[in-house]
């Protein structure tokens, strides 16, 4: 069953086409990878899906809802949530508090109830915090829950950001270069984590990645793009054998990232 369907997506910045008539679809419970050389338009595709950019053309259907009509902050309510290339967490908050931000849409009580600490608001906070602790436990970070986020090692920040997405009970998580800045051990750990998120939290995962080992390792299917256009789509094996993909990589950078 298809969960996300991108149809004929195009967006241009000042005449330059960043994404050009791109179509692909992701199935339920699938781990799907989007790859391409630097500047291929991968992150732009992400930003279009999550409505940070409004595409010039095309449809983005998530469970049959057209996302283009939605405000950026309403996307998460549909069960679609993302991470960022350069980890965007709040340093002044503890790990647990950063996770609670991910549950923002679950909070029913606002300013008034919280100012007066009404019992219902206290109860709500407790319940959501318990959920947060569960996720921190899953990530192996429970003992650090009350530590400030600022100053934590990068590997932990990446995990916390993943944890934050899980707080919204997502149907699909979009990961923007999750392995960037991680060392080899951490990358292997990340691959395991991504797989266990799928099984434990029943969600599909769409990821943009530079690290080919990670992509080939975890993805069920991959879409390779270059200059905003689709080059090939298929299983990791098919992509590795695709001549179009090899040319695009070899033609653009000297260091081949495809083994």
């Amino acid at each position, binding site marked *: 069953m298809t969960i996300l369907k991108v149809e004929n997506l195009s967006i241009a*910045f000042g005449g330059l086409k960043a994404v050009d008539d791109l179509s692909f679809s992701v199935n339920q419970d699938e781990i799907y990878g989007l790859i391409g050389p630097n500047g291929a338009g991968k*992150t732009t595709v992400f930003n279009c899906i999550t409505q*940070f*950019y409004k595409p010039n053309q095309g449809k983005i259907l998530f469970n049959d809802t057209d996302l283009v009509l939605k405000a950026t902050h309403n996307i998460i309510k549909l069960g679609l949530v993302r991470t960022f290339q350069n980890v965007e967490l709040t340093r002044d908050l503890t790990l647990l508090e950063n996770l609670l931000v991910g549950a923002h849409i679950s909070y029913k009580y606002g300013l008034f109830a919280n100012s007066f600490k009404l019992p219902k608001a206290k109860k709500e906070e407790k319940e959501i915090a318990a959920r947060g602790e569960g996720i921190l436990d899953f990530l192996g970070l429970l003992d650090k829950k009350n530590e400030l986020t600022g100053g934590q090692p990068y590997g932990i920040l990446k995990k916390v950001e993943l944890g934050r997405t899980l707080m919204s009970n997502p149907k699909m998580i979009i990961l923007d270069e999750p392995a960037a800045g991680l060392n080899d051990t951490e990358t292997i750990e990340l691959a395991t984590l991504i797989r266990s998120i799928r099984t434990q939290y029943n969600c599909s995962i769409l990821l943009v990645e530079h690290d080919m080992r990670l992509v080939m390792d975890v993805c069920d299917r991959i879409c390779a793009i270059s200059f905003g256009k689709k080059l090939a789509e298929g299983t990791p094996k098919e992509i590795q054998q695709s001549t179009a993909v090899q040319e695009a990589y070899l033609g653009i950078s000297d260091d081949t990232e495809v083994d």
Partner: protein
Amino acid sequence: METFFQLLFGGLQTGSVTALAALGIAIIYRTSRTTNFAQGTIGMFNAFIATFGLIHMNMTPWMAAIFGMLASFLTGVAVDLLIIRQAKKSSPIAKQIITFGIIMIFLGAAPMLFGVVPLSFPSFLPTGHASIMGAAISHNALLNIFIGVVAAGLLFLFLQYTRWGLAVRVTASNETTAKLMGVPTSHVTMGAWAVAAALGTLSALMLAPAISVNVSMMDTVQINALIAGVIGGFQTFYGPVLAAYIIGVSRNLLLFYVSSTWGEPLLFMFILLFIVLRPNGLIGKKIVKKV
């Protein structure tokens, strides 16, 4: 019709005063990435210095004005060296707050050095009127309009056709790239603060004959110059200048034809409405933020 022209030229004169201040704000905005709320206060402070030259050093108004502008150059350089440069790494909000600190320092320094009594500064051309379409416009008003237009024009030519102007524009569009290309961006920023201070001082001295030299003389100019920046858009240098003249004239017309009490609030209401309808200003372009 006479009244209309009287109001029109009066408006253009205030427009010139605002335009010079707005131009200073725009230059700093483009090179230092901060909205300089201290533009007016720095102008006020140096207007005091010019008046000091006039009173205690027997200068003519013209000499005093040049003296004040030279002083303002130094003020601008000092502000950049001592404060702005130290704040390079600070967040935009922090930089903004620093300009508030600069306001307070000059507001404190002015009465400390020059006393609390308002001083008077004469018009450059004390006598003479020209008759335009039946309206009597003083020579000084025409001179002020002329100074505003010429100063703005010279600055455009400088930015457009000189090597230094190019350096400013490159710094304005992307400081990191400019630095990599060998543009001395720190000199550019320092120059921007110096020129902006001089423009603010000129603006203050043009206003001085009408309202005397005092600590709050530039308050209204500062507000109108900022609004001119918003309406004209900070992306271009001519936008704020154009907007300054539009504000000056429409304010005068509203004050006379609609209400002398409600004219000003009404103008602000129109401006808010304008912001709703054209959030990117008169000539603004929409900038897509990179995520």
